[in-house]
């Protein structure tokens, strides 16, 4: 079943940079897709247009039957509550504890008063505890987030997204600030989220080998255009070179050689 459908999507920042031009793709429920491409290609812009953190210039986006670009304010909150987002720099509220940050994921469902005072139901708190355990953070639960390691912070980020009970996760360079060990843990968790909970994942990555290892499908972006959309098995050296330019191509594909490791 199609969960997300993007048609003729364009984005121009002011009168300057054209960040996306005529982007078309669709995503099936339960797919794990990596979006690869050089820095500045438009990957972040693309993800953020999907939940309207950035307003697209023109085009059509359908998510779960909703016409994303036509939603009013209230409907937009509803849309966002169904889409979790994970960031390169985790974007936690640092002075707050892990559990408080995780519960922020429920704010999209709250009335003004309840959200303002931070009133969460017993069920929500139980859900938060379960997810925190699932991500192996039970020992950090009352720690301030600025005392956590990068990998732990990103797991809090994932927990905050999961407690939304989302249909889709948008991950913008989730492992770009992490060491290889923590990166593997995070990617394994994301893959598990798709496999076991059936949550669709759209992941921006610049590590081609990681993308090839974990994804069901690869979308290659270059200068705001989709230049590849297909299975990771069919990503050849030529395609990588086309996306990244000739020099970097060899280097990245070499690492991509030991896939499945």
């Amino acid at each position, binding site marked *: 079943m199609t969960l997300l459908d993007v048609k003729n999507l364009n984005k121009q920042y002011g009168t300057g940079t054209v960040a996306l031009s005529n982007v078309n793709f669709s995503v099936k429920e339960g797919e794990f897709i990596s979006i690869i491409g050089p820095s500045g290609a438009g990957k972040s812009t693309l993800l953020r247009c999907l*939940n309207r*953190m950035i307003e697209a210039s023109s085009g059509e986006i359908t998510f779960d039957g909703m016409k994303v670009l036509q939603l009013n304010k209230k409907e*937009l*909150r*509803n*849309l*966002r*509550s169904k*889409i*979790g*987002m994970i*960031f390169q*720099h985790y*974007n*936690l*509220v*640092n*002075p*707050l504890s892990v559990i408080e940050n995780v519960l*922020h*994921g*429920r*704010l*999209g*469902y*709250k009335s*003004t008063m309840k*959200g*303002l*005072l*931070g009133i969460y139901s017993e069920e929500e708190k139980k859900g938060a505890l379960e997810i925190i355990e699932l991500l192996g953070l039970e020992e950090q639960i009352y720690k301030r987030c600025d005392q956590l390691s990068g990998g732990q912070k990103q797991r809090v*980020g994932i927990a*905050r*997204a999961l407690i*939304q009970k989302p249909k889709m996760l*948008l991950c913008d360079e989730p492992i770009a600030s992490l060491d290889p060990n923590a990166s593997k843990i995070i990617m394994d968790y994301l893959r598990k989220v798709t496999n076991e909970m059936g949550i669709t994942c759209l992941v921006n990555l610049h590590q081609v080998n990681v993308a090839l290892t974990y994804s069901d499908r690869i979308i290659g972006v270059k200068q705001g255009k989709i230049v590849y959309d297909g299975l990771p098995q069919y990503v050849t050296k030529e395609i990588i070179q086309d996306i990244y330019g000739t020099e970097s191509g060899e280097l990245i594909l070499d690492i991509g050689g030991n896939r499945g490791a």
Partner: protein
Amino acid sequence: MGPDIFTVRRNNRIFFFLALTAITVSSIIVTEYDIAKGFTSIYKAITWSLSNFYPDANAMTRLPDIMIKLQETVLISIAATTVAALCAFFFSIFGSKTTKVNSILSTLSRGVASFSRNIPDAVWALILLFSFGQSALTGYFALFFATFGFLTRTFIETIDEVGDSSVEALRATGASYTHIIAHAYLPL
């Protein structure tokens, strides 16, 4: 080709200096201020204040009176600061780039804040003294305006420092504007 940036800077500086001089000179003329006399009077001012402010026997008899006024002053300053902090909170939220509701309101609150901060509290006191006479209210307002401006600026800087990263995350969960203020900024 546009004019060289260094030339523009230098011209700006010259213009600024000239404007400042013009304002100074015209205020001297308007207030009939005698520069030479201003400097020679410094000595007189010192002797005057030494002879008048030095506590003598009389001062002791007035001490209870002074204590009452002192207590009043402390209470006034507490009241002024609390109310100023509350107002500054709202103005800083409207004023900061990351939390502003719209640009007009933002510019307006920043403007009000810098205006009341850049006028020193002594000047506020003078202005209010002439308008309201010497009363508790005058003192209250003088403290209020100066504290309000100062706090607003400080709060705005703090909010800007948090940056938009956690705000972005909360916005992406579907949190509303008030939720974001309450959960991303108030924890500070």
